[in-house]
């Protein structure tokens, strides 16, 4: 014979203030838990989505990122002649030799410089990245000192908007367009003509070569033919893999931080729940005695009180996740330590994170409520009825 679950719910409703306080304490913990997971997720998404699975990026062996890499012109030509490179509609290889350098730009409204990636792209640069779309202005004319800026750059940096000018490499560059790259890392880049930029920066070598595979399953073959070729000092990675590697350190840091905070906070929240549930039991000694006298057994009493704690946790969890969902409106812009370049990413809430957070809040409620519930269940009927 079980006690109806509405009994547990109504008990919470009776002590509204206490329930609200405990639940909001839990909600804060769930909020922090969810927010850190969302941040790590957002970072991962931004970087993983930046690459396409069928694209291969070629950089110098043991360079960690494009910025550190250098690919000589003759080596780039060898890569271009590989049979596995896909061919476009007009018979041109879908391959782009690119230059990637960092420049200092100042954020709008501050005097603080940040490192921004500037990418010199060729004709195939856009075709290889279907996620990149021009949203305002026009494309730069080839061979001119015109550039286009990613959405995050246009918003956040001085000189990034359309019609504004940037100065680097002893020349002035005019921004003629803004492009959007969905949620990817290209939003934090500036693109220009590769030959013009190489001139300006006096860099005789490319940074990387990007190409689409003719057939996605041929990756291993092309990788070994590039890495075992004695004339080349290059390594090949799938573009998705390359960008995932770039975020490893950051994501790990965020995960460790989130985990540590969550562990510490949840202790506090569990203690809060415990205090509330102990008080709930202490206030209802006579009630519990009456229930027992009516014939409800120990198991039902235990269940009723554990349920109450679980409800408490659920309310906290729902509140916390609801607050955390608003974090999706916020974009964080920070430096990625692995590339030293500015990167903007936002919090992203997935079903998985919501479920995890709710499960976490239920566990907190359960842990906090178990001891008091056991205490309630173990009461002696006669003494409980006698209590004042």
């Amino acid at each position, binding site marked *: 014979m079980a006690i109806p679950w509405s009994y547990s719910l109504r008990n919470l409703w009776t002590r509204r*203030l206490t329930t609200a306080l405990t639940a909001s304490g839990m909600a*804060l913990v769930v909020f922090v838990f969810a927010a850190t997971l969302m941040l790590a997720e957002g970072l991962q998404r931004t970087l993983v989505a930046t690459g396409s699975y069928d694209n291969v990026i070629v950089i110098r062996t043991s360079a*960690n990122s494009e910025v550190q890499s250098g690919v000589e012109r003759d080596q780039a030509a060898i890569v271009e002649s590989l049979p596995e490179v896909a061919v476009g509609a007009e018979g041109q290889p879908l391959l782009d030799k690119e230059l990637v350098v960092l420049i200092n730009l100042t954020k709008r409204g501050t005097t603080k410089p940040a490192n921004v990636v500037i990418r010199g792209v060729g004709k195939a640069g856009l075709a290889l990245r279907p996620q990149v779309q021009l949203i305002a202005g026009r494309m730069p004319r080839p061979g001119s000192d015109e550039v286009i800026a990613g959405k995050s750059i246009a918003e956040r940096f001085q000189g990034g908007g359309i019609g504004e000018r940037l100065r*680097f490499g*002893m020349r002035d560059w005019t921004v003629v367009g803004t492009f959007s790259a969905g949620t990817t890392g290209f939003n934090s880049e500036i693109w220009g003509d590769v030959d013009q930029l190489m001139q300006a920066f006096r860099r005789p070598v490319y940074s990387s070569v990007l190409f689409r595979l003719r057939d996605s399953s041929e990756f291993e073959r092309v990788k070994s033919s590039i890495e075992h070729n004695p004339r080349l000092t290059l390594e090949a990675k799938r573009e998705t893999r390359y960008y995932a590697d770039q975020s490893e350190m950051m994501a790990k840091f965020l995960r460790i931080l989130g985990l540590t905070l969550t562990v510490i906070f949840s202790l506090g*929240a569990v203690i809060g729940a415990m205090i509330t549930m102990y*008080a709930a039991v202490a206030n209802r000694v006579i009630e519990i005695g009456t229930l027992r006298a009516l014939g409800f057994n120990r198991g039902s009493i235990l269940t009723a009180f554990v349920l109450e704690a679980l409800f408490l946790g659920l309310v906290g969890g729902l509140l916390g996740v609801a607050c955390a969902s608003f974090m999706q409106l916020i974009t964080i*812009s920070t430096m990625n330590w692995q590339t030293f370049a500015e990167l903007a990413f936002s919090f992203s809430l997935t079903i998985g994170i919501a479920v995890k957070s709710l499960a976490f809040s239920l566990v907190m409620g359960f842990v906090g409520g178990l001891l008091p519930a056991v205490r309630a269940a173990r009461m002696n009927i006669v003494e409980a009825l006698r209590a004042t």
Partner: protein
Amino acid sequence: MILKLIIRNAFRHRLRTILTVIGVAIAILAFGMLRTLVGLWYLGVERSSATRLITRNAISLVFPLPLSYLERIRGIAGVKSVSYGNWFGGIYIDEKHFFANEAVEPKSFLELYPEFVLSPEQREAFIRDRKGCIVGKRLADTYGWKPGDLITLRGTIFPGQWEFVLRGVYRGAERSTEERALFFHWDYLNETLKKTVPRRAGQVGFYVVGVTRPEVAAEVAEAVDRTFRNSLAETLTETERAFQLGFVSMTEAIMIAIQIVSYVVIVIIMVVAANTMAMTARERIAEYATLKSLGFGAGHIGIIVFGESLFISLMGGLLGVVLTFPAAQWIETELSQYFPYFSISMTTIGLDLAIACCVGGVAAVFPTWRGATIRIADGLRRIG
């Protein structure tokens, strides 16, 4: 009398009080730790010297400057000495074993950085051996390196396997000095580049400029940048402090998040403590009414409730502060590779206690008000 009442009252519900104290202690502990972490983030800025300037390429750090700038910088008024170097960014074993490694001109570098303390014979040995390197004590301890050992780094910016002979282990003059770095001869890097990638030889990543007095730093920085304006490699010169701060501010977003979180901690304990106090007051309404009928005023009752709340959270605060020390000690030993040291400042302890008081006060507001304003008849009638 009142104090006795407060302490007695606090321990009437022993379990609840203990739980609350633990809750407050955990939160205070977390707050102290987070605050210390944020402080460490800015450590690099704290330990910079006011008489050193860093000159780098104006475009950004990844672009080099010609070696020929050395003499021109040296000729600028107010410059005492100049050293130069390159961030090498080599990898030892794998990416996880990260430590800073730089190619520097040894003699001038050690002069400019007196905080790296070497014994005279080790210093001599390092300067004489072109393949020599020095490492900080903490780093040497981590890998068990002794002078004479061979250390191999895999170059990322400068490809290849680079071998160095350990010639000295330096100690930091101060506690905050970076003891997890490796320095080797810039000449060794340059000679190798001449053979492998000649176009990259004769280039330095940064110049360190020592000025005669801190007051002339701004002028000298201005003069250096003016000297190279409109040349192929324009420079950007700033004090070491500003240079470090630039790096730190790039990751500021994360720091701000941590700071927000440390305030959220405080809100959470406020909620827990307020909850305890609300319950306590609810249970004792009848008592307050009885006390009032005996002639105690609203002020008395207010003090009793308020005092109890303060007492509980201060106990929690003290426990938290006491726990902070072993926790910091543990972090210092376990995570020594990340932090040079992890010690709690007096400011943090003061803040901890101030927060504990604040929590106690805020938690008591509502119950105090209820206890003080309860009407006797209502209080006695109520069955809590």
